[in-house]
């Protein structure tokens, strides 16, 4: 399988002509009778096969919406999606519902945050895995059941024969999330979307699930977009990191660079507000204020009102996007020296 070859090549940073996922100038608006919410404003990124992109941001920063736009999983009729969206050879924006259904679960699949509610309580785990397989591959129940068993082994669920017949409420949170992963992987997708898949799990289980996901992603050569607000999780699993604020990507780049030498004041502030590197009893550096109201248009930099290094011009014109390389940019007016001086 060519995907395996790619998987080996990409972590080293080798450029491949055509990325698996390409998003350019994505705008998502939620329109209702009395308001217009600009959830995502001009997001662009690309992802190679076998790469993991972590989208980090606080609640309401548009990270989940960006991800869901790739699958057109946003409320119909109330959402306006603009921009160029490509996954593999599919141009998502032009696709009909029927075409989308053929892709969902087969080429692109999704893992949800709450394994408790994302599994149907009245169907067994086996039924839920087999259902997806039969839908996309049109195989018999027997073949699908065999594959389901195999998948439970792949996600390392102990005594899989028995778990196949178990209902979601009979499993622990970790096993449930593993089952979710099994369902998501059932048709060998090329892109896996994960919406805070470890947030609802406790810390030890979280680590196990993360390690498993990273491993499976490498073995299967899948690309993965991982939404989280946990920087530690991002550090563990990501190849690339995109930091989102108020529907924009404010910083983007390889995980080591972004987390070790952040360039955008928001990324810096977020890293500084982490418990690591602080003495016990010392107050954490928090970011003052709260995110802007997305129903109002934002003229300048969205982060300006909370930014330590903001200037008067920040509130007036949108920040320039500074490219530091083909895969590294940030959007801030402050040049490197002044920003660094203010941060330290």
């Amino acid at each position, binding site marked *: 399988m060519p995907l395996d070859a790619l998987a080996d090549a990409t972590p080293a940073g080798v450029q491949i002509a055509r990325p698996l996922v390409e998003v350019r100038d994505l705008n998502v608006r939620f329109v209702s009778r009395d308001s217009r919410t600009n959830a995502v404003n001009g997001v662009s990124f690309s992802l190679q096969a076998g790469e993991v992109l972590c989208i980090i941001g606080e609640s309401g920063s548009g990270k989940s919406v960006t991800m869901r736009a790739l*699958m057109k*999983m946003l409320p119909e009729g109330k959402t306006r999606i603009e921009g160029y969206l490509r996954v593999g050879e599919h141009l998502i924006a032009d696709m009909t519902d029927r075409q989308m*259904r*053929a*892709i*969902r*679960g*087969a080429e692109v*699949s*999704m893992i*949800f*945050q*709450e394994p408790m*509610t*994302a*599994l*149907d*309580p*009245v*169907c*067994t785990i086996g039924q839920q895995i087999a*259902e*997806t397989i039969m*839908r*996309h591959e049109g195989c018999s129940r027997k073949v699908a059941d065999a594959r389901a068993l195999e998948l439970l082994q*792949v996600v*390392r669920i*102990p*005594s899989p024969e*028995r778990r196949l*017949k*178990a*209902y*979601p*409420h*009979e499993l*622990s949170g*970790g*096993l449930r999330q593993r089952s*979710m992963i099994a*369902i*998501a992987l059932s048709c060998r997708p090329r892109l896996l979307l994960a919406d805070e898949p470890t947030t609802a799990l406790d810390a030890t289980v979280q680590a*196990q699930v993360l*390690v*498993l996901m990273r*491993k499976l992603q490498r*073995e299967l050569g899948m690309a993965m977009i991982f939404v989280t607000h946990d920087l530690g999780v991002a550090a563990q699993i990501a190849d690339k990191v995109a930091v989102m604020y108020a529907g924009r990507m404010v910083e983007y780049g390889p995980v080591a660079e972004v987390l070790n030498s952040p360039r955008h004041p928001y990324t810096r502030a977020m890293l500084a507000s982490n418990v690591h590197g602080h003495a016990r009893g010392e107050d954490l550096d928090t970011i003052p204020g709260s995110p802007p109201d997305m129903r109002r248009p934002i003229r300048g930099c969205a982060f300006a009102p909370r930014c330590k290094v903001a200037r008067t011009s920040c509130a007036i014109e949108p920040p320039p996007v500074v490219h530091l390389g083909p895969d590294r940019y940030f959007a801030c007016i402050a040049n490197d020296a002044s920003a660094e001086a203010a941060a330290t």
Partner: protein
Amino acid sequence: MSDVNAATLADFAASEASPPVRGYWASVGHRLRYDYATLFFLSVIIVVALLAICAPWLAPFDPTKTAMAYRLKPVGFKNFMLGTDDLGRDMLSRLLWGGRTSLIMGMVPVGVATVIGGFLGVLAGFVGGRVNTLIMRAMDIFYAFPSVLLAVAISGTLGGGIKNGMLALTIVFIPPLCRVAESATTLVRGLDFVEAARASGATTLSIILHHVLGNVLSPILIFASSLISVSILLGSGLSFLGLGVEPPTPDWGLMLSALRSGIYIQPLVCALPGVAIFITSLSFNLVSDGLRQAMDVKA
């Protein structure tokens, strides 16, 4: 695959002490097994149903055969174990035969209304928007009338008879069942697993059939089972008013109505149809209560 550290895996296996694997319906059955009150009343229903079904073989006399010489005789008079009614017909035979009509009046309208109301409710709840408004506001129109009045009005317009009575009861029961189905569906529709099913490429129809129906079935069934006793009472009420079953067909409601003139002569005999209605509807009520307790337990 083998590089995942063995210790973690072993811990995992150990921490997952295995509970007995039991399906939803099996666990409902398990809970019911230890609910003795419900089991008792369930057996009462079964006995009543069996008596009604076996009426042709059990009844000692023809339920419609009148005998002027034996009018309103007490319990235990000669061969009439439960006495006779105002036309000298054997009460026991009439009660057995009457159970057939009463049970049919209780169950058929509820069954039909569950299918129709459930369908409309799931449709309204899942599709939402204008379809929901259309269906639910139409149901609200029926809600504007008290149920007894509505049943009386419908069967009064259509004329008497068992069929029209059952039709009237069905129409009365559709709106509440539709409403229960709609609210359950609206609740389920917003849950993650419906979105997860969509994310794995399921069509709307297969989401409804596989995921929504399975989850809304138990609230609908619980509510429907509680309507059976209402239906028996309403059916008896219609017969009492002369709108349901027509004489001489035996029916508990009709018997109660006909015997009310004899209440001063043979109070015990005249109360018997009422007792039968009471026991049956009480049993249905309590069984539906037990069913709710067994089914409602959330994981």
